[in-house]
C-alpha cells in the first residue's frame, strides 16, 4: 500500500548525492502529495481574493474555501462546532495564544502549571514565561524508563493548586504515547484546565478531542501533509469565550471607534489580519487524502515500519534505542545513538548516502537532559510514504557510519 502512496509524492522520487532519497524526518515536517500541491495551486489560479471582506464572487469563494476547512477540521478531530476551530500559523503560535490569552489572565501568584518533561519547547517556554511573570510554579511530570508518564506522577503532581495542565500526547523525541485521557481526567478533578499538544499524534492516529474532553488541543498542518504556515487551535467554546483576543487588527472586530473596540464573535475573535487561505485549501486536501487512506491504515503502515526498524536496530550492537520498544505504546518515531559517534556526524554521513534524519536535541532540551544525553540523539520518523527500502537504506547507512570514523575499515 505504501508503495502506491509513495507515487503521490514526487519529491521522494529523486537522487540525493547519487543515492536513492530516503526521507526519515516526517516528525519535523511531512512531504506533500500532488493533491495538496494542486489544491494550493488551484486556489491561486482560480479563487484568490481576500476572504471575509469583498462583496464579490472571488472573495466569496475564498471565504468558502477557508470556512469549509474549519468544517473539515472540526469533523476530523471530533470538535462540536466550527467556533471551536481557530486557525493559527502552527502549534507554537497556538501555545503562545493560550499562554498569553489564558495563562496571563487567569494564572495568579502561587498557582501551579503542570507540564511534562517530554514537552517540545513550544509547550514549555510559553508556560515558563507565564509562571515567571505571574509568580506561579511550573511543575513537571517525569517519565518511567519506557518514556511514559507514570500514574504516580499524575496523582502526585496535579494538585488543588494546579490551574493549567498542558501535556503532549506523543513525544516528538521518543514517539511514546502518553496517558492523556487520565491526565485530563485528573486535571478536571482538581478544577484545572487541560491542554494537549497533538502535533505528533493527529497525523498518525484517530483523535477525538470531545471524547478526550480536552479543553484545548493544538497541532500544525505541515506535519500532516498540509503546507507550512497553517495550524489549528481547538478550544472548547466556553474556554475560548472567556479568553481575550491575542492578535488585534483587521477582521477580528465588530465595531471600532477612536477609543474603543468590540470584538468579533468566535472564531474570528482570534484571527486578526488576512489569514492563510492557501494553507487552509491545502489542509482540506491533506485531511481528505488521509481520510481516503483511513487513519487505521496510517497506523498500520507506521507500525510495520517501526517494528522492522526496531528489530534491525537491535541487531546492530553499536546502537542504543531510547524509550519503549513496544509498538503499541509508541508512534512512528525512534530515537537512538551510535556508540562513539556524535549524532551530527551520523546525520552528515547518512546524508551522503541520501538518507535524511534529524539529530540534536529536537527542541526538547529538558527531556534530553533528563534522559542524560545532552549531546542529543539521532531520530528517525516515518509516514505513510515510507517503505521497507527506506529501513534498509537506514541500516546500511548506519553500518557505514562507524567505518567513516575509524571503527573498522571503510
Amino acid at each position: 500500500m505504501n508503495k502506491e502512496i509513495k507515487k503521490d509524492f514526487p519529491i521522494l522520487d529523486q537522487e540525493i548525492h547519487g543515492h536513492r532519497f530516503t526521507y526519515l524526518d516526517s516528525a519535523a515536517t511531512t512531504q506533500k502529495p500532488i493533491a495538496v500541491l494542486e489544491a494550493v495551486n488551484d486556489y491561486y489560479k482560480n479563487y484568490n481574493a481576500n476572504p471575509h471582506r469583498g462583496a464579490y464572487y472571488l472573495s466569496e469563494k475564498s471565504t468558502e474555501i477557508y470556512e469549509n476547512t474549519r468544517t473539515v477540521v472540526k469533523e476530523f478531530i471530533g470538535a462540536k462546532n466550527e467556533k471551536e476551530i481557530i486557525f493559527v500559523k502552527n502549534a507554537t503560535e497556538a501555545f503562545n495564544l493560550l499562554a498569553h490569552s489564558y495563562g496571563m489572565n487567569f494564572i495568579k501568584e502561587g498557582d501551579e502549571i503542570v507540564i511534562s518533561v517530554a514537552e517540545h519547547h513550544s509547550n514549555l517556554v510559553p508556560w515558563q514565561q507565564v509562571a515567571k511573570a505571574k509568580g506561579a510554579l511550573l511543575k513537571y511530570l517525569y517519565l518511567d524508563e519506557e518514556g511514559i508518564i507514570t500514574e504516580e506522577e499524575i496523582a502526585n503532581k496535579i494538585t488543588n493548586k494546579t490551574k493549567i495542565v498542558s501535556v503532549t500526547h506523543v513525544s516528538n523525541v521518543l514517539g511514546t504515547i502518553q496517558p492523556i485521557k487520565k491526565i485530563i481526567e485528573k486535571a478536571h478533578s482538581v478544577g484545572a484546565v487541560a491542554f494537549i499538544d497533538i502535533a505528533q499524534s493527529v497525523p498518525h492516529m484517530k483523535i477525538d478531542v470531545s471524547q478526550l474532553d480536552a479543553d484545548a488541543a493544538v497541532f500544525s498542518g505541515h506535519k500532516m501533509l498540509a503546507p507550512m504556515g497553517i495550524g489549528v487551535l481547538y478550544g472548547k467554546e466556553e474556554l475560548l469565550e472567556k479568553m481575550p483576543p491575542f492578535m488585534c487588527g483587521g477582521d477580528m472586530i465588530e465595531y471600532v471607534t477612536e477609543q474603543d473596540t468590540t470584538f468579533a464573535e468566535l472564531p474570528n475573535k482570534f484571527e486578526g489580519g488576512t489569514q492563510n487561505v492557501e494553507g487552509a485549501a491545502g489542509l482540506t486536501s491533506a485531511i481528505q487524502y488521509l481520510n481516503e487512506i483511513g487513519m487505521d491504515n496510517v497506523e498500520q503502515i507506521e507500525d510495520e515500519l517501526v517494528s522492522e526498524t526496531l528489530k534491525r536496530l537491535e541487531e546492530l550492537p553499536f546502537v542504543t534505542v531510547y524509550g519503549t520498544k513496544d509498538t503499541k505504546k509508541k508512534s512512528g518515531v525512534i530515537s537512538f545513538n551510535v556508540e562513539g559517534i556524535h549524532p551530527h556526524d551520523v546525520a552528515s554521513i547518512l546524508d551522503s548516502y541520501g538518507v535524511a534524519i534529524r539529530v540534536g536535541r529536537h527542541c526538547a532540551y529538558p527531556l534530553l537532559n533528563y534522559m542524560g544525553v545532552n549531546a542529543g540523539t539521532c531520530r528517525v520518523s516515518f509516514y505513510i510514504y515510507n517503505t521497507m527500502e527506506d529501513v534498509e537504506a537506514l541500516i546500511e547507512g548506519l553500518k557505514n557510519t562507524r567505518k567513516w570514523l575509524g571503527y573498522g575499515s571503510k
Partner: protein
Amino acid sequence: MDLNSIYTEVIAEHNMSNHNKHHIEGADFIEKGHNPSCGDEIELELRIKNGIVEDGGFTGVGCAISQASTSIMIDLIRGKSVEEAKELIETFLGMIKREIKDEKELEVLEDAIALKNISNMPARVKCAVLAWHTLEESLKKAV
C-alpha cells in the same frame, strides 16, 4: 558528496585520540564556546606566559568535526605567541570562508588544512569554527 574530503584520517585520529582533552594546570584563561543550534560545547583552557601560549587543553562534548578542530588548533598554537595565534585564527577563518585560496598561504595551518572542505557541508561549518572563535574571545582578554 565526497565524504573522504571531510571525514579525513586526520579528523578521525584527532576525534579519537583525546590527547588535548584535559584540564590545564595553572590555566589563566578559560573560555566557553557553544553552538546552541546543535549543542556542541567546549571549554578551552590556556596558560599564557610572557605573551606565549605555553599550553592548552579543552573539555566538552561535540561532534567529530568540532572536537577534532579544537584538538588540531591546540596542537597548532602551543608554543606560539599570542600575536601568531591571532594570525592563525584569521588564516583559518579565511580558509573556511574561501577568502584565502593560496595553498602556500595556508601551509601555516598544518593539520588544520584537513578542515578546508567543510564549506562543502554548510550545516557543519559552525562545528569547525567553534574552537577558533572561542580562542579569539579568549585572546582578546590576554592582551
